[in-house]
C-alpha cells in the first residue's frame, strides 16, 4: 500500500528546504519548507506580511540574500542568477503585475523570450483564454484596467514554454466577475498540465482550484494540508489569516 | 530598562567626543596655518587656503544638501574678475573690492540657483555645468575681463586703508583671517537649525516638506551662501595672485574642487581643506609633467569613487567613530 501510494505521487517539481531570505538587514524568511509536485496546484496562504511574496521572489532569485535550498527538477537554484532561473522554466506573475507602461499590449505580451520549444501556448490559444486582450493589442500597457493588466500578466508568461508558474495574488483588487474568469483560466491551465504555485489571501477562491495548501506565518510554514482536509482546518485558517 | 538609559548616554558621550575632537582639529589647523609660512612658501599656502575655502563652499552643497554642483568655478571666477576689476580700474581698497566680488557671486548664485535647485541629482549637476559654461563664455567675450589675457597686475592696496597688503606678512595674516572666517561660517551654518533642516532635506525631502518647511527656499539659501563663499575665495585669490584669468572660471576648475572635496572627504569640515592642500601640492609638484597632472587627477578621481568614497577625513572619522 505505501509503495503504491509512492508510485502514484508525482515527482516534486519544486522543493524548498530551510529557505531563509533577507531584505538588507531584515530577516524575512526563517526556514521555509515546501514542495510542489508535477501538475499540481499548490496555494500559499498567509496574512499580509507573512512572507508569501518574498517566498516567490526568493524562488525567482530576486531577493538579494537567501540561504537554504531551492531545487527545481532536482537542480539547485540558490546560487543562480534571475535570468538563469527563468531560463530553466520558472515564471513569475508578480503581485504588482509589472505591465510595462512604455510598451504596447502586444509588445508586453510578446516580450518574454521563448525558453522552451515545447509546452508554449500559441498566441491563438492565449486569445481564446483572454479574448479581451486581442482587442487591446495596440493600446499602451499603461492604459489597461486592473483586470486586463492581470490577464496580460498571466498571458505573458504562458507563451514562453515555462511549465511552472508562480501567480502572486492574481485576484487582488478585482471585481467578482473578473475573479471568476481568472479562476476558470487557472483551472484551465491546470488541466493543461501546468504546475502552479499560487499565492492567495482569498482561500474560498483558492479552495475551488487548489490541490494542497501551505499556510505561512512570520516567515515560516505553519501548516500544510490537502484540499480535502480544508473543512476541518477552517478554524485554524480563520485564526491564522485573521479573517 | 538599563538599555534604554544607556542609549542617550552614549549619544551624549559621542557628541561630547565630537566636540572635543573638533576643538582639537580646529586648534591643530590654526596652529598649522600659523607655522606654515615659516616652513613653506607663503604664496603657496595662501593660494591653497583660497582653494580650501572654495572647497568648503562646494562641500556645503554636496556634503550637507547632496547637491553636486559641477559648475562652481563660475562663482570663484566671477568674483575674482569683479574684485580684480574693482581694485585695478576703480581703485577700490581690497576689502571693498572683495566685498563687491562676493556680492557678484552671491547674485549669480541666487539667479542660477533659483533655476537649478528645482532639479536634483544628475540633472542639477548638468544644469550647473551649462550655467558655468555660459559664464565662461561671458568672461571670454566681456571687455572688462580682457579675454585670454585676463586682468593682470591687480594692486593689492591697503585693506580698509590701514593694512598694506603688498607686505607679504600682512597679506598672509589677511588671507588667514578670511579663510578662518569663511571656514567658520560654513561650520556654523551646518551646525545651526538651518543646517539641521538642510541635512533633513538631504535625508528625506518629502518629509521635510510635509512638516511645512519650504525646502526650495532652504536649498536656494544654501546654494547662494555657497556661491558667496566660493566668491570670497575667488576674490581673495585675485588679490593674492594679483590677477584674474579664465582658468578660474573654467570647467577644469569646477572639476578640481570636486576632486579636492572627494579626496578629503565629502560632508566633513576638514576634508575639503586637506583635499585642497593635496590637490594644489600635487599640481605644484607635477607642473613640470604637463598634462600628466590631468591624467593623475583623473586616476585619483576614479580610485576615490571606486574604493575610497569617504575620503581621508571621512575614513579617519569613521575609524575613530567621531564626526569631524
Amino acid at each position: 500500500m505505501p509503495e503504491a501510494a509512492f508510485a502514484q505521487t508525482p515527482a516534486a517539481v519544486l522543493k524548498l528546504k530551510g529557505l531563509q531570505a533577507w531584505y538588507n538587514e531584515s530577516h524575512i524568511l526563517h526556514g521555509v519548507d515546501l514542495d510542489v509536485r508535477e501538475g499540481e496546484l499548490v496555494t500559499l496562504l498567509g496574512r499580509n506580511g507573512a512572507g508569501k511574496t518574498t517566498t516567490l521572489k526568493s524562488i525567482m532569485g530576486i531577493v538579494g540574500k537567501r540561504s537554504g535550498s531551492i531545487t527545481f527538477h532536482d537542480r539547485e537554484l540558490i546560487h543562480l542568477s534571475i535570468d538563469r532561473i527563468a531560463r530553466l522554466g520558472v515564471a513569475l506573475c508578480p503581485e504588482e503585475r509589472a505591465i510595462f507602461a512604455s510598451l504596447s499590449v502586444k509588445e508586453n505580451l510578446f516580450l518574454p523570450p521563448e525558453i522552451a520549444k515545447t509546452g508554449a501556448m500559441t498566441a491563438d490559444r492565449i486569445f481564446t483564454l483572454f479574448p479581451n486582450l486581442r482587442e487591446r493589442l495596440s493600446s499602451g500597457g499603461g492604459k489597461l484596467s486592473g483586470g486586463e493588466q492581470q490577464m496580460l500578466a498571466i498571458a505573458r508568461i504562458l507563451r514562453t514554454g515555462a511549465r511552472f508558474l508562480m501567480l502572486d495574488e492574481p485576484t487582488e483588487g478585482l471585481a467578482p466577475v473578473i475573479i471568476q474568469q481568472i479562476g476558470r483560466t487557472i483551472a484551465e491551465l491546470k488541466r493543461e498540465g501546468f504546475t502552479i504555485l499560487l499565492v492567495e489571501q482569498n482561500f474560498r477562491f483558492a479552495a475551488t482550484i487548489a490541490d494542497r495548501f501551505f499556510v505561512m506565518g512570520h516567515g515560516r510554514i505553519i501548516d500544510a494540508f490537502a484540499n480535502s482536509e480544508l473543512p476541518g482546518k477552517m478554524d485554524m485558517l480563520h485564526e491564522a489569516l485573521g479573517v | 530598562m538599563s538599555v534604554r538609559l544607556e542609549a542617550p548616554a552614549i549619544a551624549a558621550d559621542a557628541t561630547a567626543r565630537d566636540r572635543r575632537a573638533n576643538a582639537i582639529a580646529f586648534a591643530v589647523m590654526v596652529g598649522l596655518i600659523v607655522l606654515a609660512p615659516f616652513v613653506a612658501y607663503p604664496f603657496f599656502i595662501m593660494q591653497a587656503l583660497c582653494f580650501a575655502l572654495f572647497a568648503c563652499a562646494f562641500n556645503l552643497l554636496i556634503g550637507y544638501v547632496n547637491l553636486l554642483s559641477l559648475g562652481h568655478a563660475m562663482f570663484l571666477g566671477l568674483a575674482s574678475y569683479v574684485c580684480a576689476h574693482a581694485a585695478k580700474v576703480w581703485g577700490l581698497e581690497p576689502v571693498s573690492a572683495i566685498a563687491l566680488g562676493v556680492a557678484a557671486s552671491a547674485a549669480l548664485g541666487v539667479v542660477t540657483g533659483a533655476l537649478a535647485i528645482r532639479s536634483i541629482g544628475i540633472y542639477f549637476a548638468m544644469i550647473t555645468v551649462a550655467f558655468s559654461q555660459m559664464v565662461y563664455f561671458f568672461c571670454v567675450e566681456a571687455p572688462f575681463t580682457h579675454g585670454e589675457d585676463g586682468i593682470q597686475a591687480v594692486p593689492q592696496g591697503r585693506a580698509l586703508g590701514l593694512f598694506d597688503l603688498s607686505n607679504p606678512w600682512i597679506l598672509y595674516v589677511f588671507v588667514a583671517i578670511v579663510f578662518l572666517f569663511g571656514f567658520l561660517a560654513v561650520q556654523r551654518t551646518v551646525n545651526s537649525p538651518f543646517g539641521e533642516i538642510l541635512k533633513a532635506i538631504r535625508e528625506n525631502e518629502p518629509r521635510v516638506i510635509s512638516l511645512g518647511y519650504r525646502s526650495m527656499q532652504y536649498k536656494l539659501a544654501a546654494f547662494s551662501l555657497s556661491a558667496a563663499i566660493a566668491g570670497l575665495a575667488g576674490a581673495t585669490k585675485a588679490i593674492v595672485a594679483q590677477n584674474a584669468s579664465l582658468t578660474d572660471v573654467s570647467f577644469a576648475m569646477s572639476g578640481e574642487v570636486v576632486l579636492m572635496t572627494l579626496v578629503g572627504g565629502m560632508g566633513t569640515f576638514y576634508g575639503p581643506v586637506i583635499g585642497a592642500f593635496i590637490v594644489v601640492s600635487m599640481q605644484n609638484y607635477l607642473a613640470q609633467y604637463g598634462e600628466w597632472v590631468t591624467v593623475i587627477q583623473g586616476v585619483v578621481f576614479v580610485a576615490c569613487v571606486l574604493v575610497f568614497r569617504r575620503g581621508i577625513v571621512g575614513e579617519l572619522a569613521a575609524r575613530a567613530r567621531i564626526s569631524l
Partner: protein
Amino acid sequence: MNVFGHVISWPQLYGQLLIGLINGSFYALLSLGLAVIFGMLTIVNFAHGAFYMMGAFGAYFLLKLAGLDYWWALILSPFAIGAIGAIVERLFLKRLVGLDPLYSLLLTFGLALIFQGLFQNFFGASGLPYAIPKQLSGAYNLGFMFLPVYRGWVIVASMVVSFGTWLVIEKTKLGAYLRAATENPTMVRAFGINVPRMVTLTYGFGVALAAFAGVLAAPINQVRPGMGADIIAVVFAVVVIGGMGSIMGSILTGFVLGVVEGLTKVFYPEASNTVVFVIMAIVLLIRPAGLFGRAS
C-alpha cells in the same frame, strides 16, 4: 537685411544655417547617446565628450597606422571605442550599481580627465588634419548657395543614424527589451533576459554613437584632444532642454538648437556661444523637466 545694426546677406544666412545644421547633427548624435545611456543606466556619462574625441582619433589612427580610409573608420572606430565603453562599464560602472548615481557621474568625470589628459600628452592641444574622403569632396550648386558635399553627408548620416536608432528603440523587439528594462530591469531579468549584459551593450552603443559623431567631425574640425570638452557642455544644455530620457526629444532638440545657434551667429554674433544656455534657463523656468521630459 539689417538687424540689430548688422548687415546680413542671404548667402551669409544660408551659410550659418548650414553650419548650424552641422553642429546640430553633432548635438543630436551626442545627446542621443547620452539619452540612450541615461535610459538604461540612469547615469549621466560625463566621459561622452572624451569618447567623441576618441572616435575622431580612432579615424586618424586607422588611417595613419593601418592605412584604412574614412569609410572603414566610420565603422571600425565606433566599434572599437564602443568596446572600450563596454569594458569601462564592466570594470567600473558595474561596481557602483545601487549607490547614489552621483558616484557614477564622478567616475565618468574622472575617466574623461584621464582620456583627455592622455591624448593631450601625446598630441598636444593643436589639431591634426584629417582629409575629407575624395568621394565626398567638392560642392553642389544648389542655385542659391554652394553646399560642400561633405557637409551635406554629415547631416544626412547623422539623421539616418539618429532616426534609425529611434526606430530600433521604438519599433523593434530589441527596443522593446530596452524600454522594458528601463522601466523594470528586475522583471525583464525574470523573463530570462540577461539584463546586465544588455546594460553593458547599451553603454557601449551610446559610446559608439559618440565615436561615430567623432569620425564625422574629424574632416570638419580637425582631430583635437580638446574637441570633446568644448562641445560637451552645450550637449548637456541640449539634453536639459530636450528633457532626459526622451529619445526623439534629444534628436529634435539637437538639430533645432544647432540651427538656432547658427541663426544667432547671423543676427547677434556676440550671443552665439551663450544662446543655448539662455534657452536652457528659459526652458527650466517654464518646464523644469525639459520640453519632452516627463516631470518626475
